[in-house]
């Protein structure tokens, strides 16, 4: 089941703009390796789930996968062949707003080589350019 909020204040949200780079959530915190976005964009809840399945099928219980983004933005759409007007469309899907620098997924308990292969599979599902990052120690 794709991720989505349990409770929301408003069903529909405005589109918004993605300005600047991520100043939070831009370091590997839980695992040893991570995958970092290099572009701004929306990542759909279904895409996050597809990435999770792709990664977990590869690690097969050997490592622990952490999802660092959550789809809390509802995106509405108007059905096809509908006349203009009649208000804003109904919510279509949920998306996570991603800024450059955001860590999308993390992996722990695997070797660097395994993490690289796993994230390469996962990256092919994502709508943004990403790069492989390691934990930065103090």
């Amino acid at each position: 089941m794709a991720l989505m909020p349990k409770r929301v204040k408003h069903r529909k949200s405005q589109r918004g703009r993605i300005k600047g780079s991520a100043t939070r959530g831009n370091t590997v915190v839980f695992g040893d390796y991570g995958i970092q976005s290099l572009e701004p964009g929306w990542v759909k809840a279904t895409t996050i789930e597809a990435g999770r399945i792709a990664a977990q099928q590869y690690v097969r219980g050997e490592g622990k996968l952490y999802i660092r983004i959550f789809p809390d933005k509802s995106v509405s759409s108007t059905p096809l062949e509908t006349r203009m007007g009649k208000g804003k469309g109904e919510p279509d899907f949920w998306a996570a707003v991603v800024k450059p620098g955001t860590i999308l997924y993390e992996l722990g308990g695997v070797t660097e080589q395994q993490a690289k292969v796993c994230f390469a599979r996962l990256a092919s599902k994502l709508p943004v350019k990403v790069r492989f990052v390691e934990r930065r120690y103090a």
Partner: protein
Amino acid sequence: MAEVLDVEKREQMGSSATRRLRRDGRVPAVLYGHGEGNEHLSIPAAQVKTLLRHRSKTVELAGAVKETALVSIVQWDPLGIEVLHLDLIRVNLKELVQVTVAVHRHGDAAGLRQGGLLIDNTHEVEIECSAGQIPEGLVLNVTDLALGGHMTAADLELPEGVSLVTPVDTVIARIEQPKGVAEEEPTDQAGEPEVISKGGDKSGEEG
């Protein structure tokens, strides 16, 4: 052995001058502490990279300023590629300092052979020691860690003269039973989250 950094004094401050400095392959830094005035410095970027690769904490400043300093804060760009700025604190190699060091796992945990998954809860701990004897990291021997077990900060091997500041009951690593791949949470096929209304607890319609 402390790293030696060739520092130069910065005459011009401000974002434009700092940007020019970075373009010329130098990293801006500031030196303070011990009740003396601040010194605005710049360090070659290559030396900063070496410093970070070696995970050195104390540095020997040479050039415009001759001091011993502790690397306190490292500022990175949002993508974590370039170092933007360093904070250096004047330090005497014999004085006690509190620093954060990495935890390195050692050995193969017994729980891994039982099909468990080794999870690191804490990757870094805070210690107190003399500035001249800061270890690169602390070792945690996980050989005896069985399935379902955990190790705390008390199990860390501390070198002589090093004391732990992090609470000793902090869990550092644990072995847990891996969850099945096909584990699915109960699905709520309604596909609509609950809307928080202004007046009551909940409502199906937006206010």
